[in-house]
C-alpha cells in the first residue's frame, strides 16, 4: 500500500475512518515510520491548536453589549439631582464668591487706599466703573429684596438673592440647552 493520503491522515487523526479502512491504514502504519510521524505531527498540532490562548474582547465589552440591548431607563428627578450635585455645588460656590466680591463693602476700601502708580491708576479707573456698576446692582437688588432684607444682614441677603437669581437663570438656560432649543455646538 502507498503512503497515506492527506485526507486519510486527517480522517485517521480525527477518528472518522470506517473500520475496514482503519484496518488497512493501521497495517501500513505498523511498518511505515514516515506515516507514523505524520500522524503524530497532526495529532500534536491539533492538540496545540485546541489549547491556544483565546483573544479576549476589551474589559467593558459585556457592559457595552448590555447597554445597547436593554431599554434605556428615564432618569428620575432625584437621580438627576444626585448626578448634578457636584455641578450644583460648584456653581453655588462660584456665584457665592462673585456675590461676595460685588457686594462686600470691605473690598472697596482696598482699591481706594493705594499709592499712586500706573497700576493703582488703572485700578482707580476700574473701581470707578466698578462702583457705578455695583451701585446700580445694589439699587436693583435692594428693590428685589425690599421687605425681606433687614438692615443687619443686608449684605448677606444680597449675596443670597444674587446667587439664587443667577442659579434660576443658569438653570433655565441649561434646560434649554438640554432640550436642544439652544445649540452650543453645531
Amino acid at each position, binding site marked *: 500500500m502507498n*503512503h497515506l*493520503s*492527506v*485526507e486519510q*491522515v*486527517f480522517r485517521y487523526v480525527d477518528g472518522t475512518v470506517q473500520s475496514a479502512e482503519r484496518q488497512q491504514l493501521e497495517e501500513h502504519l505498523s511498518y511505515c515510520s*514516515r506515516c507514523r*510521524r*505524520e500522524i503524530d*505531527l*497532526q495529532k*500534536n*498540532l*491539533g*492538540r*496545540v*491548536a*485546541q*489549547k*491556544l*490562548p*483565546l*483573544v*479576549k*474582547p*476589551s474589559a467593558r*465589552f*459585556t457592559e*457595552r*453589549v*448590555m447597554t*445597547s*440591548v*436593554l431599554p434605556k431607563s428615564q432618569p428620575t428627578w432625584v437621580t438627576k439631582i444626585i448626578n448634578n450635585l457636584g455641578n450644583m455645588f460648584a456653581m453655588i460656590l462660584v456665584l457665592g464668591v462673585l456675590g461676595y466680591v460685588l457686594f462686600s463693602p470691605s473690598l472697596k476700601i482696598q482699591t481706594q487706599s493705594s499709592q499712586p502708580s500706573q497700576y493703582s491708576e488703572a485700578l482707580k479707573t476700574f473701581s470707578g466703573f466698578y462702583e457705578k456698576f455695583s451701585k446700580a446692582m445694589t439699587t436693583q437688588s435692594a428693590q428685589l429684596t425690599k421687605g425681606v432684607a433687614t438692615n443687619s444682614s443686608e449684605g448677606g441677603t444680597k449675596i443670597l438673592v444674587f446667587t439664587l437669581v443667577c442659579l434660576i437663570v443658569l438653570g433655565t438656560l441649561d434646560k434649554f440647552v438640554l432640550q436642544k432649543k439652544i445649540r452650543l455646538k453645531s
Partner: protein
Amino acid sequence: MPNSDQEIIQRILAGEKRAYAELVNRHKDKAMTLAMRMLKSRQEAEEALQDAFVRAFKALPRFEWKSSFATWFYRIVYNVCATSLGKRGEEIHYSLDDEESLVHVELTSDDYIPDLQFETSEVQRIVSEVIQNLPPKYTSIVTMFFIQEMSYDEIVEVTGLPLGTVKVRLFRGRSLLRNALVERFGNDFDGVTMFKDFDDKKESVE
C-alpha cells in the same frame, strides 16, 4: 454546576433580560477569537462581535432548539464577519477554487519532519501566528474546528457551505499550517530543542 445556555435563555425570554450578560460572558472569548482570525483587526473584530450579540439578542425569541445556542450564534458571528470581509472585497463564500480536489493540497511529505517540542511556548506562538495569518476562508473553519470543537456538520450549519467545501477548506488550512510549521523548524533542528529551556518562563503569550 453552572447554568446551561438553555436555562439562561429561558430566563431571558421570561423577562429577565439582564441574564443575557451571562450568555455574553460565556461565549465572548471564543467568538472573539473567531472574529479576530477572520477580520485580522482587533477593533473590527470587537465591533463585529458586539453587532452579532445585539442581533442574537433581538432574534432570541425566534431561536428554536434545532441546534445548540453556540452553533446558532456562531452563524450570526460568521455572517457579520463575512459581510465585513465582503465590504473589503474579500469574498469568503463559495468560490470556484473550492471545486479543486484535495489533489492540489500536498503535504511536503518528503521533508524531514522535525521532532517538535509541542509543549514549548515557541511552537505554540508560531502555530497561533500561522493560524492567525491564514486566509479568512481557511482560518475561520480551522478555528471553528479546533477552538469551538465543531463537527463538520456544525461547520456546514454555521457557514452554509457544502460539506465538500468545508472538508477541502479544513484540510487545506491544516495542511498550510502543518507545512508552515515544518518549514519553520525543518532545517533548524537545534532551534527547536533550544526552546525547551524557555518552557516554564514564558507562560502565556498574548
